[in-house]
């Protein structure tokens, strides 16, 4: 006769099984790249080395600091100094090692020929990027947890408050994640070996610069002079910085995904949306500043920054191929409203141009509103600020549009990548902008300022002069009319060409794809539709 074990013993025996099942189910939901990279990291010498070095650094610092302070530890506020030393140690793996590991992790996929294997798997580009970022985040958590006791120790030593500790750690973590995302963008963009070598060196340099910058910022935050940073009244400053960080991270993250997406797919809309969201936040902050009575000079500076940003983004977007792939055309909007609003987010050279110009024009409008609504006078006359704004937007529309037309023309005779189109547009704008400065440097006999034909092409020459009212009024009017007319003409030509892209219609989804969708997501069983329990007849192929 068999004896059954007592009930509680059976429950205990079932417990590990249930826990295992739960853990396995949780493990199934983890990103495959994250699982693989964690397994690799735990066995890698590099991670072990850095982790051990971090611990040794902390122990040496702690023992050294205690030995130096000695018995005075009970009344000296040494926490701030010690925190800074720990911060110097911690920031190195966070800001240099982790982002560089993320960069290497993706670029080594090219070198080890595993990139192809990832591409032919069912992993989406978003999963690949999330996995790499998740792995970086895990490393950050491990490094932070290794240092947590030391940081708690600094608080006990006095001389540093929790806000400062929190701020410093937040800066380091955000910098690490942001730089890791930048590393992934660089790795995704460079596939050739020589480019990878150059970018490795360049990125390492950038990381050490960021490390120095972070330490400088940490020193400033720790100091008495920056106590205003900790003031509750200045919460908006942290919110603004966080907004800038979050939206920039969104753009970089979307760029990394776009660069790893296959070419026939829509690589552009996500990026445009991310940039548009960033622009919306930017406009909201500028609007808030105008409403709070900020001088319009600052708004004009914001316009200049936005113009440079949108020129780079616009050059990339308007370098895209004008013909949409069948895959993209499957998801084009069909309604009038949808086409009017969403067409500018669809991939394509012309739509990219119009999208960039509209975004800069929105900020220009903000400047004009600021000029005529604020009561606080700025350094520049309101009329001159408005004229300079008009001139800047005109230059923007003209250069971006002419560059796009040039790239479009070259595309008809030769193959050109998006990066090639971008470089041509940037070089074209730099040439036009730098021409008067080059001539002035080369020849002292030519009085460049007297020759409008030489200076007219240069926004960097004319915009500051219009802003300061340095140009004679007749020259100023001629310049405004000429540049405005060229910009309008170029914009209209490009708009007409963008109209061709907008006319591309949605194509039907292939029958095989619809079949596959139905196979993957079978229609739910029809529900009871009345109290008698009747169910509707299943739809037949003919009725569909």
């Amino acid at each position, binding site marked *: 006769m068999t004896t059954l074990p007592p009930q509680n013993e059976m429950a205990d025996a079932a417990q590990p099984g249930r826990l295992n099942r739960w853990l396995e189910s949780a493990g*199934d939901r983890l990103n495959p790249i994250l699982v*693989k990279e964690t*397994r690799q990291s735990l*066995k890698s010498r590099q991670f072990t080395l850095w982790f051990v070095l971090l611990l040794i650094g902390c122990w040496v610092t702690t023992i050294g600091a205690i030995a130096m302070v000695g018995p005075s530890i009970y009344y000296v506020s040494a926490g701030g100094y010690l925190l800074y030393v720990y911060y110097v140690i911690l920031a190195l793996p966070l800001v240099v090692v982790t982002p560089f590991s993320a960069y290497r992790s993706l670029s080594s996929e090219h070198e080890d*020929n595993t990139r*192809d294997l990832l591409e032919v798997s069912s992993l*989406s580009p978003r999963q690949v990027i999330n996995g790499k970022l998740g792995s970086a985040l895990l490393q950050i958590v491990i490094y932070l947890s290794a240092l947590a006791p030391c940081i708690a120790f600094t608080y006990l030593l006095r001389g540093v408050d929790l806000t400062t500790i929190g701020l410093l750690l937040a800066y380091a973590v955000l910098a690490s994640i942001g730089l890791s995302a930048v590393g992934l963008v660089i790795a995704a963009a460079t596939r050739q070996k020589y480019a990878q070598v150059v970018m490795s060196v360049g990125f390492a340099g950038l990381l050490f610069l960021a490390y120095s910058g972070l330490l400088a910022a940490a020193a400033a935050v720790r100091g008495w002079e920056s106590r205003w940073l900790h003031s509750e009244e200045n919460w908006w400053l942290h919110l603004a910085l966080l907004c800038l960080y979050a939206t920039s991270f969104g753009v970089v993250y979307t760029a990394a995904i776009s660069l790893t997406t*296959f070419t026939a797919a829509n690589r552009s809309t996500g990026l445009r949306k991310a940039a548009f969201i960033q622009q919306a936040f930017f406009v909201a902050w500028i609007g808030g500043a105008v409403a709070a009575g900020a001088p319009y000079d600052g708004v004009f500076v914001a316009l200049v920054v936005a113009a440079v940003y949108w020129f780079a983004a616009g050059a990339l977007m308007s370098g895209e191929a004008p013909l949409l792939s069948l895959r993209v055309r499957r998801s084009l909007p069909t309604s009038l409203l949808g086409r009017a609003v969403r067409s500018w987010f669809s991939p394509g050279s012309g739509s990219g141009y119009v999208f960039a110009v509209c975004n800069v024009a929105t900020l220009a409008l903000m400047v004009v509103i600021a000029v005529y609504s604020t009561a606080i006078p700025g350094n520049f006359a309101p009329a001159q600020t408005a004229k300079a704004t008009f001139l800047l937007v005109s230059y923007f529309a003209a250069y971006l549009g002419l560059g796009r037309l040039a790239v479009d023309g070259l595309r008809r005779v030769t193959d050109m990548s998006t990066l090639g189109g971008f470089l041509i547009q940037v070089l074209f704008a730099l040439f036009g902008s730098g021409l008067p400065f080059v001539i002035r440097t080369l020849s002292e006999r030519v009085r460049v300022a007297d020759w409008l034909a030489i200076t007219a092409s240069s926004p960097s020459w004319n915009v500051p002069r219009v802003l300061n009212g340095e140009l004679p009024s007749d020259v100023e009017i001629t310049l405004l009319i000429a540049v405005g007319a060229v910009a309008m003409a170029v914009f209209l030509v490009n708009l007409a060409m963008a109209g061709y892209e907008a006319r591309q219609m949605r194509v039907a989804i292939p029958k095989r794809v619809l079949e596959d969708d139905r196979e993957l997501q079978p229609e739910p069983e029809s529900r009871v539709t009345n109290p008698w329990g009747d169910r509707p007849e299943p739809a037949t192929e003919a009725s569909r």
Partner: protein
Amino acid sequence: MTTNATVTAASGRPLRTPKASSGPPIELRHVHRWFGSTHAVNDVSFIVEKGEVFGYIGPNGAGKTTSMRILSTLDEPSSGDASVDGFSVIDDPDRVRSRLGFMPDYFGAYQNVNVWEYLDFFARAYGLRGTERRRAIESTMDFTGLDELARKPIDGLSKGMKQRLCLGRTMIHDPSVMVLDEPAAGLDPRARIELREMISRLAEAGKAILISSHILTELAEICDRVAIIERGQLIAVGTVDEISGCVEEEITVRLRVTNDRASHDQTAVIPWLSRHAHVKTVVATKEGVTFHLVTEQPQRDATLAGLLAELIGAGFGVTEFTSRGKSLEDVFLHVTKGRVQ
């Protein structure tokens, strides 16, 4: 090694059955690929049916790998299209990838990973979960004979074991189509035979297999059909017999006769054969007499039978009469005119 039953359901799932409207598992339609001024693939079209092993032969630089990369969604054609189970590799690469297993001619190893972890990663990457994933890994390791090496780091595997692991990775998600680029390269004879057996069993399980190899004798044994590509262009497609039939003008025959009668022994048969209208190059060897029979392909069997009857009628005691057609290597050299690129 396992039974065929394991193959049919490598991941424990039923094999994916293509829909009636899905078209052939593999189809290339007028595919072109230009690299600058080099026309790497020039108007290549062919179809591979379910359960078929299709050999892809060509000299180095002929365009085999490029076509295979296009089919595997790793490259895009300059014009034309290719489809897997009815999905275009240009417009729906994501759907193609879930149905296709690609084994490139390189290994693609991750550092600090053992055999089980390597397969586990790819099973996860193909969306297999929980029990399904475990079963897929176990079946794959069993099928490829890697079950005893599960915890061994992949860096320490031999070339043959790495190829097995590559094949395991390719089949882990039970694809309906497999593209194998030079799977037997660098393997010893035993490993080649084992790989050949595995491929045959995969084909028996209903998978469409496109395979390229330099070892033509092996391809001839496992392929249902072959395509010969040279300078980016397909120059012959069909079964080995069909292709060799098109190019054969002469076949080699070996003959042995009894030496019990001096007037009808081996030395007597040589002048007899030399006088025959369809025979040329008669050579006496230690094993008998070898000669070439010149005939057009449709009349080949009839001519052979007629010659044998004539020999017996002439009083020769024939103990062996063996004909040998052209091997795939002969056909390949003939079709490609022996050029090496």
